[in-house]
């Protein structure tokens, strides 16, 4: 599988930077954003992003709001929520909004990597389906 391409969104700069380095060590291509607004900008310019690892609680726009915008903007990128609230409630709220999964801070890097890979597979499988559907559509137009 081609290495996943992910966006890390968190207002904790140190956390994001270290996380990015660790992801790179695990052959995951990572870009960073330090707010939800910046994250949305990065998403627009990097539409091939597989997964966004998104912190829930951030100043300004929070993670759940950004998730809503991602889902209403028809981006196919999967979202994994990362929450400092060590409870399942915020995670469940996120799942209801269409998040792939959620993890609580501090999380195990291997667990996160595993989730990222699963989400990437799902996203890419989805991409494939769409691509196939579009190909079939073009082919059917051509044949007709």
């Amino acid at each position: 599988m081609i290495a996943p391409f992910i966006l890390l969104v968190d207002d904790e700069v140190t956390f994001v930077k270290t996380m990015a380095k660790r992801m790179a060590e695990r052959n995951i291509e990572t870009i960073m954003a330090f707010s939800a607004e910046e994250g949305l900008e990065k998403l627009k310019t990097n539409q091939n992003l597989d997964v966004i690892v998104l912190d829930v609680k951030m100043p300004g726009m929070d993670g759940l709001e950004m998730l809503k915008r991602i889902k209403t903007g028809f981006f196919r990128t999967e979202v994994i929520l990362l929450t400092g609230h060590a409870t399942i409630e915020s995670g469940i709220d996120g799942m209801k909004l269409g998040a792939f999964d959620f993890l609580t801070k501090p999380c195990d890097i291997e667990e996160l990597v595993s989730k990222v890979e699963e989400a990437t597979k799902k996203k890419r499988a989805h991409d494939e389906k769409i691509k196939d559907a579009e190909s079939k559509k073009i082919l059917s137009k051509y044949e007709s």
Partner: protein
Amino acid sequence: MAQDRITNKLHSRKFTRNMVLIVILVSFIPMLLVSGMVLHQFSNSYNEKLYAHLKEMIHRHAQDIDSFLNERLHNLQFMLDSCDNVDLFNESVLQEKLFQLQQKYGDVFEDLGIINEKGVQESYAGRLKLENAQYSKAKWFEDALKKPFYISDVFLGLRSKPHFIISVKRVYQGKYFMLRSTINFEAFNFLAENLRIGNTGFAFILNREGNFQTKLHDDMLPSKKSYMDFISAGKKAKHGIYIGELTDDSDGKHIIYLAALLKNNDWILVYQQEKKEAFSDLIRTQIIAGVILFIGALLIVIMLSFLFHQIIKHLSEADREKEMMNRQIIETGKLASVGRLAAGTAHEINNPVAIMVQEAGWIEDLLKKEEFQEGENLQEIERALKQINTQGKRCKEITHKLLSFARKTDTQIQSVQVNKIVEEVVGISDKKSYTGITINSYKDQTIPPIAGSQTEIQQILLNLINNAIDAIGKKGGKIDITTRLEERFVLIVVEDDGSGIPQANQDRIFDPFFTTKAVGKGNGLGLSICFGIVKRMGGEIDVHSTIDIGTRFDIRLPRNKT
């Protein structure tokens, strides 16, 4: 605390005493006034009745005695009227007349005699030899000469025995003569003695000079002066009866007197009785009424004391319950504050912890590179990093519990079987296989489902079992979990035979972050969480613990309202 209890006890006693005194004053004053009035009226009425009765009795006796005397006088008058005067000078005729009188009236007439105007008894019939007896110097004769008929005072006379004389004066051949008879004193005396009431009530007759005309027993001898004083001071009432009271100088006894005039006011019939005896019925009634009043008052005081004691007891219990509720409210408030604080800080704590763990993870990643593999302290660094990870996870667990504690209504309320939860929890705990600890469950099969959160009840039981296991420690022991159905609650009892909780700590065990466990072994939130859950469910949680004997937690969860 002990001083407070003593102060409360003293306060309660003072309150009871004051209340009893107030009620007694309020109820007793009217009762005593009414009782006093009734008794006073009754005494007056009794007094009037008694005196009326005695007056009537004295009046009748006076009439009887007067009738007796008048009848005897009429007997003599009739004798004079029914035969020739000359015959009466014949002793045999007089003897016959005496015989006839004695036949008719018994021994009342002792003798008969005809006395001429010079005081010589010309004719006599009787047991004594009094023919030609000289009465010209006798006082009675002098008095008798002045009246058509006469009744003398009692005197000893020639026969040296008390007697009295009745006489009727007539004129024969221009000269006075009189028919005289001696009246048997015993027969007359009986009339007065007949009037006896009780031990101290008796009657006697006095003449105007105060001389007794009837016999007196020695023990009843009244003072002559007293009677004279009495007659002069006594009140005259109906039928000419005198009434009065005197105090006997010799023994200080109160004596009541009633007197009536006899024999054309020459004699006085006196009746006397000790007041104490005359009014004995009244005094007895007063004593009975007093005793009843006293017993009634005593019963009222006892009942009031008992009732107020009960009221105070109930009030004290209510105060205690109120105090307990206040404490629970404070506890709940404390929990809520801690909950809010926990929710606010959990995220803030998790973020730096996450960074620390992340950085440690990054060092771990770097150490895997070749250039670091030869490092002298590699193993020590790896151990330190592992420790950072472990402690990071511990922080995470703590914040997780803090957030569980802060959670409000995030659990699903459903119909749950308490016995089933107990079974599951005992099953989970057993699997952990604690050395030397046995967990027993005793379930009441009649317990119906209740409304609650399964996970929350599980959490309560797990927390309590974990605490029990810690309390039992390595020495081994047992944990009993019992369920029972009560009127309003389902009771779950978790009991261990562990080390127990010191009395001083029992009030604080539900406080958040209160723990007696070693650092790192407990965070002091377990029982606070239990307390919060039970209170949210509308239940109760109580602890009973004795050092070295064990601890019992009673959890009461409300039954469904039917």
